[in-house]
C-alpha cells in the first residue's frame, strides 16, 4: 500500500466557520485522498464526534481557531477530554501566542493558512503517531522499523492501516478492551516528579486560581491533557480540604528514639514520616505511600537513594516559578513567635539525638515517641493497628544514618524556611539545580548537611506558623502540608501502611486508587488523624521534594 491508499482509509473532520476556507480545505483534503466531512461549527462537530464514539470515529480533526460560538481551543480541550483523536489547528492567525496556545491545548500541529497540499498530505502521520501511544503491536512494528515497507511487504502495511482504521473507527474489541481503552484514554501515571511539578504549578497559580487549563499550560508536559490535570486537581483539592479541616487534630510525633538514633529509614526504601505533635494539630502523619512494592512503586523510585542523593530537585524552570513566589510564611503570620537562634543545632542531628524530641521537650509536647503515641490511643482501629505495626517495622529497619540525619536536618532547615526567612533560602541552595523553595531543600541534604543545616527553629514557632497557614488557607497551605508531609516522610519508608488494595497488590500505578483510599478513610471522625488513610496523600506533596535523579 502506498501513502495515497493509506490516506484513503482515513476520515477527516474539518471545522471552519469561513465557507471559503472550508470549501478549499475540503477540496485539498480530497485531493490527498482523505475522506472528508465538513462542518462550520465546533458544537456540531462535537456532536458528530460523540455520536461516532463507538463506530466509525474520525481519525483526524482539522479545526480553525477563531470561530463564533465555541472556538478552536475549547473545541480542542473537549476533544482531548472526551475522545482521543488527533487535532490539527488551522488558522490565518500566525502569531506566536496563538500558535503556542494551540499546541499547549493539545493540538498536534498548527498550520497557517493558506495551507498547501504538501502540508496536508502528511497529516496522516499524526494519526499513526497518536495510535502509537497505545499498546498496539502492529503500529509499533510499523513505526519501529523505518524500512518496514519494503521489508515486509503489503500484509503488514495492511495490518497497520487496518489497525488504524479499526482503532479509530471501531471500538478495538479485537485488541482487548482494556488495552485499547488505555490507549484511548492515555492513562497517566502521576509520578512523584509529575506530581510535584503539578503541586508547584498549582501553588504558583494559587490554589484558588488554579484551573486545569492553566495548570496544563504551565506544566507543559507532553502528553498531559487537561483531563488528567482536572481529575488530579479535584483529588488534590479534596485532600487539601480534608486536611485543613483536620488541622486541629492532634498529631503525634513519631519520634521514636530508635528511629532517630539509628538513622533509620532513609534508605532505598525511602523516607519515614514523623509527626509533629502540634497542639493545634497540624495534620500530617503521612505514613503510607500508595503501593507497597518497593521496587516498582513510584514512591520507591522517588525515594530511592539516588533520588535523595541528588541535588537537583526540580527542573530549572520550576525553580523560576517557585522563586517568584514567596512560599515562605510571611513573618507577620508568625505572630509573636520568637524566632531566633534555633534551639537545636545540627550537632544534635549528627549525633543522632532526636532533634524533634528535644524540641518537643522544650515545648512540652506530651509525646516524644512513637510508642507513647501509640499508647496514647488506647483503641486503635484495625487500620491503625496495622499501620502502627508497620511503622514499628519501618522504624526498626536500618538505614543510612547520614541520609536520615540529613533528612531531618533538612526538615529542620525547612522549618526555618517556613518561618519566613526568605533570605535564608540562599545558603541552603546546594548544587547547581537547587532552588530556594522550602520543601525542596529536603533533597539537597545528603552529604551536604553541614552546609545545609543551620539554626533550627523551635517547634513552637514552626507549629504556629503551620497553624496560621492552615487557618488562613493561603497559598502556603499546600506547601505547609508538603512540608509536614516531607517531615513525615523522613521516618517512613514508602510502604503503604494503610494497605490500599492497589498498593498491596504490588503496583499501584494509578493515583486514583490511592486517592480514593484517602478519601474513603474517614480521617477526622474518630480521631485517628495520625494514622489515617489521608496520610497517604501527604507523601505526594513530598514528591516534589525528591528528585528522581533523572
Amino acid at each position, binding site marked *: 500500500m502506498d501513502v495515497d491508499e493509506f490516506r484513503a482509509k482515513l476520515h477527516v473532520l474539518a471545522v471552519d466557520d*469561513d*465557507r471559503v476556507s472550508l470549501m*478549499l480545505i475540503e*477540496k485539498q483534503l480530497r485531493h490527498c485522498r482523505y475522506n472528508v466531512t465538513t462542518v462550520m461549527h465546533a458544537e456540531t462537530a462535537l456532536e458528530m464526534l460523540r455520536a461516532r464514539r463507538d463506530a466509525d470515529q474520525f481519525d483526524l480533526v482539522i479545526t480553525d481557531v*477563531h470561530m463564533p460560538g465555541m472556538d478552536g481551543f475549547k473545541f480542542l480541550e473537549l476533544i482531548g477530554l472526551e475522545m482521543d483523536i488527533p487535532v490539527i489547528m488551522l488558522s490565518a*492567525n500566525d502569531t506566536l501566542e496563538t500558535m503556542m496556545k494551540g499546541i499547549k491545548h493539545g493540538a498536534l500541529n498548527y498550520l497557517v493558512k493558506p495551507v498547501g497540499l504538501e502540508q496536508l498530505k502528511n497529516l496522516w502521520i499524526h494519526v499513526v503517531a497518536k495510535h502509537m501511544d497505545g499498546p498496539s503491536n502492529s503500529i509499533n512494528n510499523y513505526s519501529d522499523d523505518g524500512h518496514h515497507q519494503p521489508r515486509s511487504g503489503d500484509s503488514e502495511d495492511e495490518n497497520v492501516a487496518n489497525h488504524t482504521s479499526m482503532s479509530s473507527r471501531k471500538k478495538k474489541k479485537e485488541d482487548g478492551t482494556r488495552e485499547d481503552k488505555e490507549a484511548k484514554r492515555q492513562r497517566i501515571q502521576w509520578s512523584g516528579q509529575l506530581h510535584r511539578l503539578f503541586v508547584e504549578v498549582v501553588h504558583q497559580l494559587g490554589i484558588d486560581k488554579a484551573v486545569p487549563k492553566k495548570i496544563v499550560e504551565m506544566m507543559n508536559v507532553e502528553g498531559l491533557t487537561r483531563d488528567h490535570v482536572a481529575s488530579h486537581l479535584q483529588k488534590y483539592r479534596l485532600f487539601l480540604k480534608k486536611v485543613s479541616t483536620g488541622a486541629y487534630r492532634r498529631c503525634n510525633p513519631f519520634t521514636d528514639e530508635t528511629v532517630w538514633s539509628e538513622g533509620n529509614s532513609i534508605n532505598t526504601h525511602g523516607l519515614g514520616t514523623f509527626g509533629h505533635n502540634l497542639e493545634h494539630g497540624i495534620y500530617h502523619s503521612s505514613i503510607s505511600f500508595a503501593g507497597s512494592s518497593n521496587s516498582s512503586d513510584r514512591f520507591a523510585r522517588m525515594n530511592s537513594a539516588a533520588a535523595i542523593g541528588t541535588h537537583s530537585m526540580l527542573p530549572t524552570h520550576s525553580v523560576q516559578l517557585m522563586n517568584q513566589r514567596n512560599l515562605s510564611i510571611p513573618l507577620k503570620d508568625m505572630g509573636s513567635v520568637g524566632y531566633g537562634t534555633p534551639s537545636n543545632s545540627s550537632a544534635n542531628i549528627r549525633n543522632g539525638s532526636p532533634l524533634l524530641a528535644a524540641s518537643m521537650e522544650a515545648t512540652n509536647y506530651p509525646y516524644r515517641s512513637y510508642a507513647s503515641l501509640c499508647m496514647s490511643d488506647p483503641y486503635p482501629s484495625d487500620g491503625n493497628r496495622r499501620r502502627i505495626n508497620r511503622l514499628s517495622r519501618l522504624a526498626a529497619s536500618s538505614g543510612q544514618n547520614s541520609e536520615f540525619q540529613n533528612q531531618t536536618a533538612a526538615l529542620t532547615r525547612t522549618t526555618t524556611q517556613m518561618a519566613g526567612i526568605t533570605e535564608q533560602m540562599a545558603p541552603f541552595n546546594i548544587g547547581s539545580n537547587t532552588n530556594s523553595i522550602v520543601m525542596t531543600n529536603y533533597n539537597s541534604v545528603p552529604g551536604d548537611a553541614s552546609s545545609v543545616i543551620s539554626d533550627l527553629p523551635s517547634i513552637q514557632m514552626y507549629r504556629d506558623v503551620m497553624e496560621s497557614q492552615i487557618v488562613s488557607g493561603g497559598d502556603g497551605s499546600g506547601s505547609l502540608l508538603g512540608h509536614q508531609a516531607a517531615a513525615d516522610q523522613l521516618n517512613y519508608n514508602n510502604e503503604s501502611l494503610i494497605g490500599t488494595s492497589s498498593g498491596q497488590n504490588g503496583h499501584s500505578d494509578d493515583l486514583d486508587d490511592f486517592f480514593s483510599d484517602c478519601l474513603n478513610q474517614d480521617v477526622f471522625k474518630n480521631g485517628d488523624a495520625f494514622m489515617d488513610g489521608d496520610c497517604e496523600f501527604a507523601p505526594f506533596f513530598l514528591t516534589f521534594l525528591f528528585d528522581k535523579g533523572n
Partner: protein
Amino acid sequence: GLPSPRRPRAGTGTSHKLVRRRRCSSARPARPRRNSESDAELLKMMESACFLRHVLEGYLDEQFCQVEDLQDEASPNFAEEVVTLFFKDSARLISNIEQALEKYPKDFNRWDAYMQQLKGSCSSIGASRMKSECMSFREYCGQGSVDGCMKSFQKVKREHTALRQKLEAYFQLLRQAGPAGAAPRPAK
C-alpha cells in the same frame, strides 16, 4: 511555486484553464483547436485571458494558482465556485465592518475581529492586494487610529471592487472559451 514536473493528477481531466502556469508570472496558452475560424476567435480570447491574467497577477498571488490547480474532472469550475463564494462572504463582511465603524465608534477590537475574518478569506483565494489592505487596517486598529482605519477601509473596499471586476471578466472569458477551447492541460 507549483511542483515540477507536474504529474497528471488522478482524476484530473481536461482543464478549462486557458492559461496554465507554473508561476503566476508567465502565461501559457492552451493548445488551440484545429478549426481555423474558431482558432482565430479562440486565440483572441486566450490572448485576452492571458492579458487579464497578467493584470490579475498584481491582484492575486500563488495561492490563486493553487486554487486553480485543485480543479479536476469532478469539479472543473472549482476556482470560479470558490471565488464566487468569496465575493458573497466578503461582501457581507465588508458590510458588517461598515456598520461597525458607524455603530461602534472606536471599538478597535471589534473592527479588528471583523477584519481578521475578511483577511482570512482573502488569503484563502490569494487576493494579495486586498489582503494587504486588510492588514493595514488592522495595524491602524492596533494603533487606535480612527482616521487610519477609515482611510484604510476605503482602500479595502476599492480593492474588493476591482478584484471582483477582474475576476468576473476572467471567468467569463474562460467560460466563453470553455467548450470550444477545452484542451488537455499542457504537459509540464
